[in-house]
Every structure is written in C-alpha cells, then in structure tokens.
C-alpha cells in the first residue's frame, strides 16, 4: 500500500512537472535567445486551451492539437512583429511592461467571448480511461498522454536546436547577432519566428492540458508565476534546466501534500512538541498546507545558492 502510494505520487509529480515544462519551454527559449521576459507567455497557454476547446466542439479534439499551436504561434508572431519590435530600442523594461499589458488584455478578451467561468473542455472519450490500476488506485490514461506529449516536445526542440541548420543560426543569432546579420541572415525575422515558435509550444500545451485541468480565464494567472519559478530554478534560457526545474517542483509538491508534518510534530520527538503546539503560529503549520508555497521556497533557495539556476550559464 505504501509502495503503491509512493509510485502514484511520484508519477503524479512527474507528469505535473512535465506539464509545467510544456508551458515553460517556450518561455525559457524566448528569454535565453532574445532576453525578453515574456509575461504574456502563460496567456498563450490559456488561449491555446480555448482554441482547443473551440476545435473540440466543431472539428474534433485532435484537430485542436494541430490548430491551437498554429493560431497561437501566429498570435505570437503578430505580437512580436507589430508590438514588441517597436519597443525593443527602448530596452527590456519596455518589453516587460508591454507583455505585462498583453497579459491583462488577453485575459479580458477571453472573458468577453467565453465568459468568466470555466468552459466544458473535456478529455475525448477515446482517451478517457484508466491506463492501469495500482491497488485500488486507477491511473487516468490522459495524464500519461500529457507526459508523452511533453517528452516528444522536449526531444523535438532539442533536435531542432542542436542538429539542424536553423538551430545553428538561431543559437548564433543569440550570441553574436551582428555577425550573423553580416553573414546575410535576417536576424529580426529569426527572432520573430522564435517568438512565434515559443508561443506555439505554449498553445499546444494549453490544448493538451486544458482538457484535463479546467479551461478558464484564470488559468494564465494560475500558472503565470509558476512557470517563471520553473525557469528561474532551471536557469534562464536553459531548456534542460526547465525540465529539471519543472520535474523538481512537480515531484516535491506532490509528495508534500501527503506529509502532515509540522515543526511541532518534528519537535515532539525531542520532547518539545507540546510547548510548540501551544505556541501555535508557524510551528503548527503542516507541510501539506504549504504545498502551494514550496515552489517559491525552492526558488529562494536556488537563488541564494546558485543565482544562475541549476543548469544556467554563468555570466
């Protein structure tokens, strides 16, 4: 029973982590290569989910998995080409403020069209079954599906960046953009494409995860800060770092929920339990109720010990 529980908790954590990675991958790529902190990134995830929902109503769920990244990618290209590029000469603060504004605009626009409440975007019947049972616990197949999509995505991005000519141009444009331009490559276009690509990845993540987690106007702000934490923990700009950071957050949160320990209960073994319980406050807060805070504690710790993140490049 304990072993079953451990395995399912681990799997829950890993898959939640992979889901987080899907959203953060685009964010870390865009930051690493363009230096733009994109606050609106989680909005692309939300919009992807809504487009997936629309497609599931009219064209079917699988069409949504293709159309959502395309539409969201186009939206990303549009945002970069028409908005971000204009403020780039003013520096990063302006870019940051612009994406911050986009975040609010996207959320309100979604509310205008779909209302304040969650929409009924459901897992298609063909994928809605238990993959396996551990003891009395059924494990939903769709969670595995999310994990597999995330893994495929990771491998594909890595392959494109490391093995193709396009990847070489992109990586070179990041380090020596003037040199790449001198060699005849259109650097601004590379950046636009990259921004669109990052947005498309978030859109795909939305279309996949939105069917499992509710699709609502708040889903961007729910994940908004968390994906930043993932990227900071992993190291800004590092794709592998984003995987590690996301998995770390997923697994730690998943296990924390099951641990009803507090400082007071730990101190009980030293004979101080009653005193601390009476003092209350911080001493009686159980770890499980802190599950939502743990990612931020982790980030704090990483920033103190390794400011560039787990796999970030030292500057």
């Amino acid at each position, binding site marked *: 029973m304990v072993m079953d*529980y451990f395995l399912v908790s681990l799997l829950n954590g890993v898959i939640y982590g992979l889901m987080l990675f899907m959203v953060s991958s685009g964010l870390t790529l865009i930051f690493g290569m363009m230096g733009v902190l994109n606050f609106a990134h989680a909005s692309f995830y939300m919009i992807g989910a809504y487009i997936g929902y629309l497609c599931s109503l009219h064209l079917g769920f699988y069409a949504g998995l293709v159309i959502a990244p395309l539409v969201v990618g186009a939206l990303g290209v549009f945002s970069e080409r028409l908005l971000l590029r204009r403020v780039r000469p003013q520096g990063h603060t302006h870019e940051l403020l612009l994406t911050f504004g986009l975040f609010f605009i996207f959320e309100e626009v979604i509310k205008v069209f779909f*209302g304040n*409440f*969650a929409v009924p975007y459901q897992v298609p019947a063909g994928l809605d079954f238990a993959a396996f049972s551990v003891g009395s616990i059924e494990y939903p197949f769709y969670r595995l599906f999310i994990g597999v999509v995330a893994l495929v995505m990771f491998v594909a991005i890595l392959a494109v960046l490391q093995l193709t000519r396009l990847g070489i141009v992109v990586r070179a444009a990041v380090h020596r953009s003037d040199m790449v331009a001198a060699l005849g490559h259109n650097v601004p276009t590379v950046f636009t494409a990259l921004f669109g690509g990052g947005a498309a990845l978030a859109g795909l993540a939305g279309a996949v995860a939105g069917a499992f987690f509710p699709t609502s106007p708040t889903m961007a702000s*729910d994940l908004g800060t968390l994906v930043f934490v993932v990227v900071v923990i992993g190291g800004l700009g590092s794709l592998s770092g984003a995987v590690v950071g996301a998995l770390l957050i997923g697994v730690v*949160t998943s296990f924390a929920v*099951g641990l009803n320990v507090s400082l007071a209960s730990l101190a009980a073994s030293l004979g101080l339990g009653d005193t601390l319980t009476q003092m209350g406050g911080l001493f009686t807060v159980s770890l499980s109720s*802190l599950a*939502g805070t743990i990612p931020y504690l982790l980030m704090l710790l990483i920033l103190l010990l390794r400011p560039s993140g787990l796999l970030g490049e030292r500057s």
Partner: protein
Amino acid sequence: MRTLKSKVLALTALATFSIFSAAIQAAPLKIAGMVPLSGASAATGELYVQAMTYVVNRFNENGGWHGEPIKLEFYDTQESTGVASDRFQQAVAEGMNIIAQGGGSSVAASLSGDVRRWNRRHPDQQVLSFTMGGEAAGLTGENCHFHHFRFATTAAIRVQALMEAMSKTGALGEKVYAINQDYSWGHEMQEAILANADKYDYEVVGKSLHATNKLADFSPYALQSQRSGAQTVVTGNWSRDLLLLLKAIDQSGVDANLATVYLDQPGSIAAAGSAAEGSYIAQVFNAEAAKEKGAAYMEDFKKRIGTYPAGLGNNGVISMMMLTKALSSLPKQDSIDVNRIALALEKAQVDDWPTGTLTMRASDHQLLLPLVVSKVSKDARYKIDNTEYGFKPVQLLSAEQARVPADASCEMQRP
C-alpha cells in the same frame, strides 16, 4: 458611470411617483447594493442585481412603503475591501439607508465594520448593514452588532445540513475526508466537519488545507483521500478550486461521495460535466424541492427578470423579502429610523418563501432559513447551464432542522 441603475427600476419608480405624487413626500428608503459588477466575480454580482431588483420592483408596484417606492442603487465593489470602503463612503454621502453586500466574506466583514464605525460617529444618520453573501462566522459571532444582519448561511449551517441529509440517506458512510482552502472559510469548514463527527457518527480520517486558488493539480489530494479509505469527501471549495478537485477525484476513480457547498455557482456544472454527477450540495434554494410553489417562484422571476434565479441570487431575494416584510409591519414614519427597521426585522417572518418559513434570530441577527440538500443528477427537473445535469433534491430541511446554535461570542449592544 460609477453606479449602475436598473432601467426597469427607474421606470417603475417614475410611474409610482406620478401616482402617489399627492402623498406627503418623506425621504424614500434607499438601499445600496454593494456587489462586484466587474472583475472575476462580476457574474455573481449580476445574480444579486437581478434578485434584489425582482423583489424591490414587486414591492414598489404594490404601493411601496406606505406609498413611497424604495430606491435601489448598485455600487461596484470589484470584490475588493478597499474599493468597497470607497463605495461605502459614496453611498452614505448619497443618503443610503441600507448597505446590502453580496459576494465575498472579506468585503462583508469590511463593510460591516465600516457601518459599525459610521453609526458610532453619526448617531443621527445611522445605516444598516446586510450581508447577503458572506459566510464567515465572525459576522454573527465576535464581530456582530445591532445594525448588521446576515441573510446567508455559515460553514456550520451548511455542514450540518449536509451531514443530516447524507447520514439519513446512508450516503455519508463512517469515514470522512475534509479538503478545504487554507483561509478563514476553509478553517471554519474543517472545524464544522470535525464538530459534527460524534453527532452523525463518522470518523474524520484525514483533513487537508491547501493554498487558495494557487494549485493547478489536485491529484495528490485525490490520492490522499483515496488512501484514507474515506467514503465521503467534504469540501467548502469554490470556483476553480472546487472544479479542479472534482475533476481530480473523478479522474482518479476515487470511490467516495463528494459533499460541497458552492457547486451551484453558475458555470460549475457545465465545466465539470460528468465529473460532478452524484456530488452532494447544501443549497439555499432548490425549486424542485418546493414543488408548485418553487415552480411559481421560478416562473415569476423569469417573467420579470428574464432568467431563472440561481445560486447566491436567492440570498438576495431572501434579504429583500425579509426587509419588505419588516417595512410593511411598521407604521408610517416622518423620517427614516433604521433602529425601528432593525427591531422590525428581528420580528419579521416571511411565510411565502417557497421552501419554508424565514425568520431572523434576534440574539445574533442570523437568518434562520430552510436548506435543501441535493445531488447532481440527470433526473433533476431544472437543468443547469444547458447541460443534462441538475440538482435533484435529497432532503428539504426546515429552518428548525437547519438551525445551529448562536455563536456565544456575539455580545450585541442594543439601543
């Protein structure tokens, strides 16, 4: 446009004015509806607007208060205590007599406090505070005061109703798991779940408090409840936290009943879909439980407002029905004395509410109301959110069955 007036109301008011223009003009009674009209909870605010307008219009059409129509205006709190306090200042400056709050315990608490301070400093221009949508125990507990009335339930009332109905129908089981949000409301829910354990003969096999509106994945909680062997999972979660929990429990194949409080928020059933089927809820109103009277109320409301009343909107209807009942019992006054209205409210009894009698408990100003415990089912008469599901009544609890003792910490200073 800082306040929102109902056009319908303005027209009715105009018509009634012209009829009674001969009558002596005392200042009309003015009610300020403090509800969220923008932001994340705007849809909830809309429910209160419809509900209050419904009762006040009906009252005014029948002659108003001794020939004088009641005025009803709405102020947008944006569900923020800071904004609500500004709107309160605006409302008293505009001569409002009753501050009726809907949407959010924190706003309810802040407005009740504002009213208490205002009344202390302005004994000649006192106002009443109505809570239509705040369920925090403190409002009728340690922070109770003579000028505040609560027309909503509390965690203790909702949990007791759930346990009563579920234990009677055998759905409760002996093992209960409590999952709640880690703030005052969730803590009160958890306390109530623990407090009812002996009375309804169950054991609380686990309890979790989680960060409010922050978690994206509830599967660890579903796993916890499954591991504990609970037959019923009780939660006070609302909105997205409720939805995520529902889905996580459904997808993990947890074999437990889910007992909820806020599943009748608009949109919840549509978003949860089949995951909500079989869940229980303690509701303020369910038309099916009230049979013909319920149907008559639903249709009349729809005729006047355009939609059926939903969820918390019913608290708005109840509060205005209690108020108009109290007003009718008072003789004609030269000027508005809110203390007399408050005393009349304590004695008011509404008999034409479809599910039963409504009264106000004088000791803590908590409304005593009937509750309906229902189950999400395809057999329900009234379907929700254009889905095939609705709330099928399991048991109608009279106000007497649903009441819980007054909070001993309430020490009310009476005039």
